[in-house]
């Protein structure tokens, strides 16, 4: 039996999925900026020569984790289409349940009872599929979180290396600042999404 409270919950879950997908844009654009920064930093480090000797491997690291983040985010984007359609299917199944309950209160008919059972079964199936997709999503975000922890570590190391780069210090320090800011923004978006996922899982339970 679906109550109007459960129907509202289904809509709220749909909004949560929408919030998660909105945050993906932030993650993707910051990861792309990081990748671009890595390329620029490599050019500066080359120009700086021996003065920025320690900075060169750092640019490779930045490039590596930003590429990985872009890849993970792209995987999430693919999953997000599935998430949206599953969340929508749950809303529609819940709505159908609600309407069938109303129909049953108008006229008790074995056919309506059968439809209620079928639709409840469908709802459970769709909810399980949504739970599974959310589980996959969670592990992707945890991967990004790990990548961002590496990014923060690299930002600290790069600042030390930048301070030894003589006249190129200023340019390379701004690279370090940029990594710090981007990693922070990505972490915030990932944390928000993990919170949404946590609430979504609680609501589906």
């Amino acid at each position, binding site marked *: 039996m679906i109550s109007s409270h459960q129907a509202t919950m289904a809509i709220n879950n749909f909004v949560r999925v929408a919030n998660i997908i909105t945050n993906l844009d932030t993650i993707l654009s910051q990861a792309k900026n990081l990748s671009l920064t890595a390329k620029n930093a490599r050019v500066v480090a080359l120009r700086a020569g021996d003065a920025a000797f320690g900075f060169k491997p750092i640019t490779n690291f930045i490039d590596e984790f930003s590429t990985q983040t872009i890849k993970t985010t792209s995987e999430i984007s693919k999953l997000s289409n599935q998430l949206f359609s599953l969340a929508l299917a749950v809303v*529609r*199944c819940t709505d159908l349940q609600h*309407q*069938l309950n*109303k*129909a*049953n209160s108008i006229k008790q008919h074995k*056919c309506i009872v059968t*439809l209620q059972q079928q639709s409840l079964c*469908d709802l459970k199936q769709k909810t399980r599929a949504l739970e599974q997709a959310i589980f996959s999503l969670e592990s992707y975000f945890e991967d990004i979180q790990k990548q961002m922890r590496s990014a923060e570590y690299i930002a600290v190391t790069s600042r030390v290396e930048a301070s030894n780069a003589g006249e190129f210090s200023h340019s390379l320090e701004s690279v370090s600042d940029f990594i710090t800011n981007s990693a922070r923004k990505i972490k915030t978006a990932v944390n928000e999404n993990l919170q949404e996922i946590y609430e979504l899982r609680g609501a589906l339970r």
Partner: protein
Amino acid sequence: MKATELFNSESHQWIVLGRDPAKPEKIIDTNQYLIKSAEEAIILDPGGIELFSPMLAGILHHVQIDNITTLFASHQDPDIISSLGLWDKTVPNAKLYAPWLWEGFIRHFGMENIQYMPIKDEGGEIKLGHAILKFIPAHYLHSSGNFNVYDPSAKILMSGDIGASLEHGDVPLFVDNFAEHIQYMEYFHRRWMPSNRAKNNWVARVRELDIDMMAPQHGRIFKGEMVAEFLEWFAKLDVGIA
């Protein structure tokens, strides 16, 4: 929801469902039509989401759910077919006949299972048991892709929004005094129908049909001589005026 039989023969039956007492006040009242043969049934303009549950409960008085094989949407409006997403799960093997023009729009109501059967501009026909139902073009009356359903055997024309009237309260099913009924139709037709040319073309074609009953999607049904009176009145009416 009230259900009234309009026609009954050995081959098929017409039932109108509407005037739901539980309908929310601000929602326009609609007539839904069920045509059933021994093994098949079609719902003409099944209605909006708000009406789905009383419609389902009402229809099950007359037909088994598995016998509902076909839906028809005269055009794309929400009061006509916004319940599609719910019917899609209730009768997943059904076909929906609707104007080709609106396929991409009507699918927004949610349609994963039901098969969309686009009706060409010039119309067409389907068989329901032994009965033949003809799709009569009624484009621009009011929608730019619009059809009526004509049953030559029952001599019933389901006219969609043509002949619609907006009345409040417990409205009788049939028009009994045409002159008095005009007040409930005039503004609707002047405002909703955009083209005199399309209207005159429709009137000329419909005058060729043998009609005992003209059944619109809103308000009272025209029966007998009221049909001719409506056609005469509508032919003279200047439409497309805000």
